[in-house]
């Protein structure tokens, strides 16, 4: 009878088993020193409100008269004043008052009724009301203040500059020709320790579209659309939504003073 313990196979098997155990032990030791969880991209919640700009030009009391009132009707609402409006189409609100009590204003949302007139829609300079199946248009004809207030100091020590117009065609052109951007302007990320403080304009070509937008050499761009620019992520998130934006607000630090630049996108 052959002893199993003397079998060559058992010897090989034992050796292989020992090697397996050693390999496993090494892997356990390695596992002990390796991290047990991975990294995840932490997305910070933005508690700052999204930028929304209300044009105060249309909020200021105006010499308003009813321009066109009736549609297939002789009725009019000449006793009503349209003092301001905000929004477009079926979204927004208007500020109205009765001529007799012009100081007592009321905010009326689209769909709401005022003195029996239902606000149907809002356009650029007028509001459409309806009553008894008839439509009435109330217009802002003349506004006392013509232009946005410039260089007004507020509590936050932010200066406001006039809004400029940015054309979508230009945005499309620059997005397709990024090299042209760097020919016209140089921007450098400025860090305060590990955090990004802002993006500094280190060079700007005179006469370029960027110069026409009011940016100046040395400006430190710190905010855009009410979002503090603390990394390229915030910059790109705004860039990605440019198609949907009608307005961009940029806050720059210029000579230790915050200056707000507002651009309308047309």
């Amino acid at each position: 009878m052959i002893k199993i313990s003397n079998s060559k196979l058992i010897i090989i098997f034992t050796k292989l088993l020992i090697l397996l155990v050693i390999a496993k032990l090494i892997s356990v030791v390695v596992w002990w020193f390796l991290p047990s969880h991975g990294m995840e991209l932490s997305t910070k919640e933005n508690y700052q409100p999204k930028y929304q700009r209300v044009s105060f030009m249309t909020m200021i009391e105006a010499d308003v008269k009813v321009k066109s009132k009736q549609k297939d009707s002789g009725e009019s609402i000449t006793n009503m004043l349209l003092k301001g409006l905000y929004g477009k189409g079926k979204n927004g609100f208007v500020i109205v008052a009765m001529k007799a009590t012009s100081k007592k204003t009321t905010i009326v949302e689209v769909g709401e009724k005022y003195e029996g007139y239902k606000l149907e829609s809002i356009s650029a300079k007028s509001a459409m009301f309806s009553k008894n199946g008839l439509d009435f248009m109330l217009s802002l004809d003349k506004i006392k203040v013509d232009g946005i207030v410039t260089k007004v100091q507020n509590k936050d020590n932010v200066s406001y500059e006039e809004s400029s117009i940015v054309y979508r065609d230009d945005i499309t052109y620059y997005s397709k020709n990024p090299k042209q951007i760097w020919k016209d302007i140089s921007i450098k990320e400025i860090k305060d320790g590990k955090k990004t403080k802002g993006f500094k304009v280190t060079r700007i070509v005179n006469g370029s579209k960027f110069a026409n937008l009011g940016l100046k050499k040395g400006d430190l761009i710190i905010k855009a659309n009410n979002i503090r620019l603390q990394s390229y992520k915030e910059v790109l998130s705004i860039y990605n939504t440019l198609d949907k934006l009608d307005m961009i607000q940029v806050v720059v630090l210029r000579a230790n003073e915050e200056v707000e630049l507002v651009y309308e996108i047309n």
Partner: protein
Amino acid sequence: MVKKIAPYIAYTIFFLVALIYFTPKINFYYFLEAQLEEKGVLISDEVTKDKGYALKVYNANLSYSSIESAEIADIALKIYGVYNSIYLNNITLTTTAKSFIPLHVDNVKVIYSILNPLNIKAYGVGAFGEFYAKFNVLEQTLHVELKPAEIMSVKYKNTLNNFSENEDGELCYDKNF
């Protein structure tokens, strides 16, 4: 002589194979992820699976400097020491890049082998065409050769302007780090 050495070679190979199998690949992946994070590259939302001799990573979101840059449907990592490869399949780049390059990349294979220890090689195929890249570890230089698809010369001329044509008429891009 060979007869005497052969068993030892066989045992060594067996030991290495066992070691690769038992290596905690997922934890190794976490370690690599931490190293990449220091360079601003972050892989998140992924699902990892230890497949014995390879590590599979599914649905990875790749971010650079906290900017979401690409989504990778699956990654296969084979780290054997003497031969290492990373196979990335079905990559969709972020829409931010849409002005520069077609957003879909079919696959990219990165290889580092002991037979060519100074170079890390990469091959890729996508809507942009095909590329071959070589990174010299010692000289810290990158060389890329591109065979562009037709769409590149129609829609992405500006991207192609970054490449120069070599003697063989191939588009090349070189960068020193």
